[in-house]
């Protein structure tokens, strides 16, 4: 077997000709050891520090590995013992005549637990630009994170260089690439800073591309992360994930989709919040002026159940391609359950949704607040069996959500809140055009759906933003 993936440049000082990388406690290395005296070969042992570093630089994963170097460039790489190939490279037709034809190698020491991380920090740590913070020897590392104000109130994972380097392997993007200007301080945020906060949040490296896309979306002018943070209102970013990445990283779109218990759901939403807190400087009672807030400000992220949905996905409705992995950010303010266990026709169920959606923010306030309706599988079945599309449901909801002026003016119903008297003769929609989003998630049992009420809508506040997840 000849491997094709070789490092572009060799570590300095390697001679032309044959190079072999070996280690102790490897039966194949010990078997070939006597031959190395007979061959014109430069031996690199992973058992000494210098040899280990060279092996790391060469990207050796298996020992023995035999390399052929010409003009300072690697031109061939053999992994394990392959008698015929070793004979060809050494030019010795009798090499290893007492040895078997073939033996697999052993794992390189550079990949041993503990050692691989140490080597990563030693050789790639310098690529990280963030300020190093030294924790005192007797400081509890988790308490130290609290003391420095880096947490959302729950414990975080200390962002050591090794953990951050491992996190960065989750993306092909350069650590130094600027992802966004994060509000409220409008700080240039690099991929590296996002990775550090993803470590704090407890993410796995494969979640990082989703976190990066969420940060990009949150920091757009349309989404208005600044105002959303600063507002006295309850809302904060809700992240809805679509496309193949949902399954690839094991997100939950089923039972308890909006709740706790799934690492990807929990930590992606949390990482976004920590970026805003730590990089952007958005802290409660400072720029964050929420009167009451909502528990989704720790984390609020879930995947859409596309496979079980009667409708096209949310991301497609937002203009993305069906094959794309995306995040959609919605400025949401908690979950309001909708109970309807009796409706078996789409008309009746739509009327229930409309009655409940009317109460978003206040039953007498039109247009000003968006909403996200999360249809559950059992409710979705009613629409599927009746052949209702997303567009049809939206159209029917819009028809049922026309508010009569005399019902919503100030004083109507004995409630001071409402519109000025001059609207008495008007009819106004509850939601602005594009202000009611629909997605599908939840477990198979339960004739319930959910409304996630939004914030000040459109150009005066926040517009939902969909961004593709890039590797």
């Amino acid at each position, binding site marked *: 077997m000849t491997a094709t993936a070789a490092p572009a440049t060799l570590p300095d000082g390697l001679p032309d000709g044959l190079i072999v990388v070996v280690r102790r406690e490897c039966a194949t290395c010990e078997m070939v050891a006597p031959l190395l005296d007979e061959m014109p070969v430069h031996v690199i042992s992973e058992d000494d520090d210098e040899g280990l570093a060279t092996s790391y630089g060469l990207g050796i994963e298996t020992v023995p590995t035999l390399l052929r170097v010409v003009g300072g460039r690697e031109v061939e790489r053999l992994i394990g013992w392959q008698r015929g190939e070793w004979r060809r490279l050494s030019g010795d037709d009798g090499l290893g005549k007492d040895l078997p034809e073939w033996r697999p190698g052993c794992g390189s020491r550079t990949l041993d637990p503990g050692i691989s991380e140490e080597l990563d920090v030693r050789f790639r740590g310098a690529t990280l630009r*963030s300020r*190093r*913070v030294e924790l005192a020897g007797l400081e509890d590392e988790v308490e*130290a994170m609290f003391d420095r104000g*880096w947490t959302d109130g729950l414990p975080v994972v200390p*962002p050591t260089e090794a953990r951050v380097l491992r996190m960065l392997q989750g993306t092909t993007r350069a650590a130094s690439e600027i992802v966004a200007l994060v509000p409220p301080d409008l*700080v240039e945020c690099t991929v590296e*800073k996002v990775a550090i906060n993803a470590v704090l949040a407890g993410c796995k490296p494969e979640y990082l591309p989703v976190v990066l896309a969420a940060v990009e979306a949150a920091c757009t002018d349309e989404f*208005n992360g600044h*105002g959303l943070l600063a507002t006295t209102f309850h809302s904060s970013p809700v992240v809805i994930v679509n496309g193949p990445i949902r399954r690839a990283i094991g997100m939950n779109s089923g039972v308890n989709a909006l709740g706790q218990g799934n690492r990807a759901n929990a930590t992606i939403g949390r990482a976004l919040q920590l970026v805003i807190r730590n990089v952007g400087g958005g802290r409660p009672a400072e720029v964050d002026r929420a009167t009451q807030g909502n528990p989704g400000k720790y984390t609020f992220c879930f995947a859409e159940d596309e496979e079980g949905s009667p409708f096209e996905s949310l991301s497609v409705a937002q203009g993305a391609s069906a094959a794309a992995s995306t995040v959609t950010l919605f400025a949401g303010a908690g979950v309001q359950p909708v109970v309807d266990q009796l409706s078996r026709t789409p008309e009746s169920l739509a009327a229930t949704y409309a009655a409940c959606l009317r109460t978003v923010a206040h039953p007498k306030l039109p247009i000003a607040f968006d909403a996200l309706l999360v249809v559950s599988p059992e409710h979705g079945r009613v629409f599927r069996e009746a052949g209702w599309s997303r567009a049809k449901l939206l159209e029917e909801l819009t028809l049922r959500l026309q508010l009569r002026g005399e019902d919503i003016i100030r004083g109507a119903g004995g409630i001071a809140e409402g519109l000025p008297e001059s609207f008495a003769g008007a009819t106004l929609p509850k939601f602005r055009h594009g202000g009611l989003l629909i997605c599908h998630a939840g477990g198979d049992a339960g004739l319930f759906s959910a409304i996630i009420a939004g914030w000040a809508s459109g150009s005066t506040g926040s517009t939902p933003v969909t961004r593709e997840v890039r590797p």
Partner: protein
Amino acid sequence: MSVRTQIVLDPTGERQPSAREVTARPASLDGLTVGLLDITKARGDVFLNRLEELLTERGLRTVRYRKPTFTKPAPIDLRHEIATTCDVVIEALAD
């Protein structure tokens, strides 16, 4: 027992909390131009209208400004215009 120190990476924007210098208050408003910035929160205009009356009675020059939406920082052009036109500014927060 050996005590190992640990290095972690700073997750913050690495901005030292630097207190921004506030321009010294003028001893008197005589001859100065006063900007009145309405952030577009409800009833902010009521407050500013009354302030404008009082300032004008004292013979001061006032200029009115309005943010497009209270949910976003003032656009940079608006900030520039206020900074170059006015000596002092009063911003109305209301609800």
